[in-house]
Each structure stands twice: as structure tokens, then as C-alpha cells.
């Protein structure tokens, strides 16, 4: 599974750093480093809906406050955890 977080100017201002750090911690604390790859990308061209995150190509809008539920629903569930 590959999670890509937009780190362009606009998403950065909307908190992509916090999203990246929370995801890094969640991936580590759930012992998923072998199964989940976390990457960054510059502007996806959808700044209105930032912070933009894709999981294997599917697009989501995440904010620093919704990282937990996003991780539970879109990462842990599909992996059967």
C-alpha cells in the first residue's frame, strides 16, 4: 500500500507537515513499515480540498484533525487490522 501526501505550498499551509508526521507515527506504532510506503508529492492541482492524500491512487482530503479516522478507515481496515 502506498500513501502519498501533497506537500505543495497550499497543502503545507493547511498542515501537511502535521499529517505526514502523524502518519509516520501511526505507521510505526502499528508495525506497518513493511506494508505501507509513505511518500510526498508536490502540488496535485487540487489545493481547494487540501491536505490532499492518495492511497494507491484513490484521493482523500485529510486535515491534521482527521488523520486518526482516515488512518483507521482507509489504511487499517483495507489491511484487515
Amino acid at each position: 500500500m502506498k500513501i502519498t501526501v501533497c506537500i505543495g505550498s497550499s497543502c503545507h499551509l493547511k498542515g501537511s507537515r502535521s499529517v505526514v508526521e502523524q502518519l509516520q507515527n501511526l505507521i510505526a506504532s502499528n508495525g506497518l513499515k513493511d506494508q505501507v510506503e509513505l511518500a510526498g508529492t508536490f502540488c496535485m492541482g487540487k489545493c481547494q480540498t487540501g491536505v490532499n492524500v492518495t492511497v494507491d491512487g484513490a484521493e482523500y482530503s485529510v486535515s491534521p484533525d482527521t488523520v486518526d479516522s482516515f488512518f483507521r478507515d482507509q489504511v487499517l481496515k483495507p489491511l484487515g487490522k
Partner: protein
Amino acid sequence: MIRRNNLCVDVAWHSINHAGEQLCGDHVELVAEDENSTAVVLADGLGSGVKASILSTLTAKILSTMVANGMKPEDAVETIAATLPVCSVRGVAYSTFTVIRIVNNQRAEIIQYDNPRVIHVRDGVPQELPVTKARIAEKDIYFSDVILAENDVFIAMSDGVEHAGVGLTYNFGWCRDDITDFILPYVKAGYTAKGLSTVLVEECNSLYEGKPGDDATVCTVRIRQREPMNVIIGPPSDRNDCGKMLSLFFAKEGKRIVCGGSTSNMVAEYLKKPLHPVLDFPDPEIPPIAELEGVDLVTEGVITINRVLEYAKDYLDQNQKYAVWSVRDDGASRIARMLFEEATDINFFVGRAVNPAHQNPNLPIHFNIKMRLVDELATCLGKMGKHIKVSYF
């Protein structure tokens, strides 16, 4: 113009004021005669405060202008002697000075009157400058003429530097040999003119225990190889010009910096190489950099450039943020090091495309800001003595 060699000059200075004074009685004036010739004058006016400041400013302005226009040094010095207003308290018109004139990036002409002698370091070894003495307008003036070599460093200073620590740290002040010993490791480490001037003056300030008994100024001239640098920021206003803009960017000599998300995507497409953002945040406020084969640095755009501009303004003023950008690994610090320290000639390739993603009124970034940032940054870099060329697409 035919460039006879690939050398250029890096000139910078730093001052501290006599404790309690708002004006510095020392003045440094830099005049670029043409692309390869520069004259810099460090003048130290009698006393401190307003009077000293007026004397030294007049002296530095007159001397630098006359010398840069090829006037004989004797005539320039006589003009100074005849022009300076006479101090009503002391009955003398007085400003000491040091002139360093770089001719065609091949020779240095040095003219000294009563300032501490210029320190010349070549290949890490202090040199004795050959001097000839002449008596002009009742003053003993010392002339030197040196053929330049790469890595030559000339350090001129006002007597406030030598007087640092009198009666505090040292009984008789900071003597020239000690100053040379102090600065030598920094010269060998390849510090820039600004870096050398700043460390010397800061050391001075601490010898004065933060309360300088005199204005102290250091002006450094460093001879170095030219180092071209190219910065691309923003896609062109007409998408069809991408190829043209990028082929010009990649045709240039020197290192390459790519700023901006859409810009880096455009460059990656052109190079047909993958773009790998690095998910590290050495500075929490600055977006991460990315790796791209074929260019030296990829960063985000406006937020990063805004920070670089902040560093550039500080560099020209108090140079206090040096401690931050000289060591950190975020995009802004890396650009600052490459542009302020490494580069001598900088080409900006600025695209005027309006990023539709940034036209959200809730975001503090928009097109005009980007253009203004680049303009201001180019102006600051020009003041640092860099040769700047800006092309718009």
C-alpha cells in the same frame, strides 16, 4: 568584454558602533567601475557620532568615486585634504582611510592612510604587502600594488578593531599579529568576505565586553573563481514556451535550483526523471525539498523564497540569522547558502504563469507576491555584489 581570467571579487563589511552612538563613525563605500574592476574605501572619521560619520562618509564617497574614475591617487588625496570640514574642537580635518582597488580582476592597488595595515593572506599564509611611501598634502600615504591570485584575502579595518579590549582583556589592545592568528583558520576554512568580516567584528565586540570604546569596522576583499548559479521559478505564462524556457535553463553553465511544485513537475517531465520529495522537516515552517536527477536542488516555491528573502535582508543588515541558515538543511537554508555564499553570477528564470491553485482568497499566497519576492531577492543579491540576470517567460 573579454574576460582575461575567471576570477572575481567578493567584497563585504561589518561594523559595530561606539557604545551609546546611533551612527557609525566608520564608512565603507563600494563602487563597481565595470564588470571586472571594483574600488572599495574604508574611512574612519575623527571621533565618533555625527561628526565622525560626516567626515568618513565624505572621504569614502569622494575617494571611491575619484579612484574608480581613474583619477591619480595623489589628486584624490589632495582633494580630500582640501574638502573636509575642519573640526572646531580639534582644529583639524581628519579621516583615515584604506582604498582597495581591484583592476580587471588582475591587480590590486592599495592606498593606506593611518588605518591599521591591511592583512593580506595568500593560500592560507599571511603576506607582507610591499609598500611605497609618499608624502601628499602633508600626509604619509602608503601605496601597494599586488598581482592577484585565486583565494587572496585582503582585510582592511578601522583602529577600533586594534583597540578592542584595551584595559579589559588586553592591556594594549588586540595587536595585528593576534588578529591575523585569530582570522587565519576562518580564511583557511573558506569563509566568505561577509563571514570573515562578521566573525572579526563579533570577536571585537566580545573583547570590548559588548561596550565598544570606538567604532570598529572590518572590510574584506576575497578573490575567488566565478561560480554561476541558475534558479528557475514558476512555469511560463504560455505553456507552449516550456520547452524554450527549459532548454535555455539547462544550456547555462553552473548549478541549478528549481523552486516551486508545478515548476519541479514541469522540470521532471522535461528530464523524464522521477521527482522524489524528501519527507523531512528540518524547519517546521518550510516545506520539504525533493530529489531530482540532473538538478542540484528542488524546493517548494513562495514560502521557501519568502524565507530566503528574509535571510537576504538580514545578511545585508545585522547578519544575525547566519547561525540558522548556515547549518540547517531545509530548502530555504540550502538556497541561502548556494546563493549568498557559493554563487557569484545568478541567472533567474521567472515564469509568469498564474497558478490556478493559488487563487484561493483564503491563502496568503498569490501571483503578485511571487513576482515581488523574486524582484526583492534579486535586488538584495545585487547589493551583495552578485551579478544578476532575470529573464521572464
